[in-house]
């Protein structure tokens, strides 16, 4: 008999967790993991593997868990994905592996993400399976940006024996995993653990290095490095371009989350970076970043945290679990609404003026297009507004490389399979190529580029270094 429901994951009760930044779900213990693993049908065609951007052998690692071969389960995942603790927590499994799970046709899909997380955490508590590093090839690769794409490319290249240096402009490595995703969803100690593992393999990380300013990609290639991978992400926050956006109390989600996560403003004054949150927070957007911002505002003392989203609940782009957690914590959802202006008094925000929307015909994205309803404006009182409507490409590297081919949105044009750009020796992947996407997509791109760089660097026709 297969249990219809996914094995539940124990979590902090909502009323407690809104007052702290500790992680919300506790993760499976061994018994829970084995129980959940036993629900897997071990389908021969394994649709889940095709649904995974990095093609983890999902039935394989789940079978190991089922038979309590936890170390082998970890090793199986790590053949395809070096960051299981992170992906298990942040992947949108319901639209990837779990979305195509055969069991999901009748019952709950297998909790693949939860099992992946279990494996990553199990490894941290037991022996680390440090990937073997091949013999030194004498070739050097520079990675620009230490987010999911860059870290993955770094690990894959190092494993193949290349010397790898990762250049990061902030004072901590991890990119969006550090500055963007909150502690209660992805503890920073986990990110640090994964990065330490790369350093143990011999990856060098150079912090405070602004490629595009401190040094240029052209200089890296002309000097020490045989290839460069650009994984600088979608870091430039988009604003709405409506009146009042300059008012005090209006933040980009990037600023709000960076102050809180990277700079630890939630521990002000122990940490020096301040953050001001009023009683009424309004968050604009419906993705994971909007959920993260709304839940962070609550934890920083807002009495009410309201998500304003122009479509309906069904179209929310956030992970299902994040929406569920937001509901549990009492986040208000003002759906089918869109801000038209920020209202201020003496330079500070007091309200967000919104207009009601209705859904019309499907647009280019296949989702029904939101259309404003005439004469339907209304005001939400707000002293804090957080704009979470996406990010554009981080500008510094593209601006410093006039010959690099960009698309009309300013993203780098790179081959989907190899990450190759129009410039010899320069590869790119992740959000800087695709626009804002997911951690796992960026990791997939980093992995593919690493393979292509390795092939290029070890091609026999190439003259010796």
């Amino acid at each position, binding site marked *: 008999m297969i249990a219809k429901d996914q094995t539940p994951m124990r979590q902090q009760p909502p009323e407690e967790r809104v007052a702290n930044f500790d992680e919300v779900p506790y993760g499976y213990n061994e018994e829970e993991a084995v129980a959940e693993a036993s629900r897997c049908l071990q389908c021969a065609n394994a649709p889940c593997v095709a649904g995974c951007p990095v093609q983890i052998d999902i039935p394989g690692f789940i079978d190991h868990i089922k038979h309590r071969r936890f170390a082998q389960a970890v090793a199986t995942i790590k053949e395809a994905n070096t960051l299981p603790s992170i992906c298990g927590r942040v992947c949108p499994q319901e639209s990837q592996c779990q979305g195509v799970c055969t069991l999901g046709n009748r019952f709950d899909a297998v909790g693949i993400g939860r099992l992946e997380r279990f494996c990553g955490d199990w490894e941290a508590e037991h022996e680390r399976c440090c990937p073997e590093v091949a013999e030194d090839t004498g070739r050097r690769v520079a990675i620009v940006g230490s987010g999911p794409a860059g870290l993955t490319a770094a690990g894959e290249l190092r494993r193949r024996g290349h010397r790898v240096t990762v250049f990061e*402009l*902030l*004072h901590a490595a991890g990119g969006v995993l550090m*500055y963007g995703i909150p502690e209660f969803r992805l503890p920073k100690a986990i990110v640090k653990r994964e990065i330490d593992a790369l350093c143990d393999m011999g990856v060098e990380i150079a*912090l*405070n*290095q*602004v490629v595009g*300013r*401190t*040094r240029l990609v052209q200089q890296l290639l002309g000097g020490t490095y045989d290839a460069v991978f650009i994984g600088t992400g979608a*870091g*430039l*926050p988009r*604003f709405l*371009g409506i009146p009042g*956006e*300059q*008012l*005090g*109390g209006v*933040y*980009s989600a*990037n*600023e709000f989350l*960076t*102050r809180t996560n990277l*700079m*630890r403003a939630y521990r*002000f*004054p*122990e*940490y*020096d*970076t*301040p*953050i*001001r949150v009023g009683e009424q927070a309004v968050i604009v957007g419906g993705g994971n970043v909007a959920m993260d911002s709304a839940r962070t505002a609550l934890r920083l003392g807002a009495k009410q945290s309201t998500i304003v989203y122009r479509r309906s609940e069904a179209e929310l782009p956030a992970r299902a679990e994040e929406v569920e957690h937001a509901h549990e914590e009492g986040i208000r959802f003002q759906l089918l609404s869109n801000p038209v202006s920020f209202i201020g008094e*003496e*330079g*500070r925000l007091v309200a967000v003026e919104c207009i009601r929307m209705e859904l019309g015909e499907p647009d280019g994205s296949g989702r029904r297009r939101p259309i404003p309803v005439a004469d339907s404006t209304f005001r939400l009182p707000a002293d804090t507004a957080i704009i979470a409507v996406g990010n554009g490409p*981080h*500008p*510094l590297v593209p*601006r410093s490389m006039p010959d690099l081919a960009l698309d009309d949105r300013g993203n780098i044009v790179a081959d989907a399979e190899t990450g190759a750009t129009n410039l010899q020796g320069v590869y790119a992947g992740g959000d800087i190529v695709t626009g804002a996407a997911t951690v796992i997509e960026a990791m997939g791109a980093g992995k593919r580029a690493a393979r292509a760089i390795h092939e290029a660097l070890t091609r026999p026709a190439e003259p010796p270094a």
Partner: protein
Amino acid sequence: MFSITEKRRVGPGIHEYVVEAPDVSRVAKAGQFVVLRLHEKGERIPLTIVETLPETGGVRLVVQAVGKTTMEMEERFGVGDEILDFVGPLGEPSEIEAYGTVVCVGGGVGIAPLLPIARALHDAGNHVIGIIGARTAELLFYEEEMRQACDELHTMTDDGSYGRKGFVSQPLEEILTSAREVHRVWVIGPPIMMKVCADATRRYGVPTIASLNPVMVDGTGMCGGCRVEVDGVARFGCVDGPEFDAHKVDFDQLIARLRYFSESEGEAVEQYKGCQCGHEARSGK
């Protein structure tokens, strides 16, 4: 870690530092800035570069103790001490060309970032007229350095305790109304001063550059805290600036935003002054 190799008081609460940061020193140009973080629990603050000393890898900065971090720097960071993070150069460099006659206006600590621009303009063959001012005599610094960088120099204090009594906008207006042709003006100082100077040069149609110092966290285009409306469009002080066409900057918005953040800054300063516990450990001494 980045060593402080020189520290000199140039006025009450104002110090000049040289920090050993060869990567920054090697490439920084006039008009650019750095972001630093003093210690593990510190905030990131932007500071404009005064001078680079490529032969020693030094970067010269002027810091006025106005917030928690700058006060801590004044009190606890001296020669031999180390700054944890030091990033740069950031921002677009000043556009230095042979314009003809250029007026460089600096107010208060704005004189510090103005100095390298005046020098570069002078080296590029411009006739450089300097105007520097401060509230009172003891807050005025770099007069000698500016005199060397400029072909002529006007010195002002609000209270008349040194130089001429009045605001920097007065000699600027006089130059603009005179028969002399001015091709470009640079103005760096408190936002209200930049606004007044920009209003003056707008009337005479003289292109004017203001160097802004908005709130920022990362300094590389990611937080958007430094956004400022220029010609009706939100631009980022860190990656599009810090210099903008002063005639198109919405200074009133900038002033309101700075006021909003100075309130949280006030809280941090209170905390810093009230509770000195643990600071010894934090500055790594």
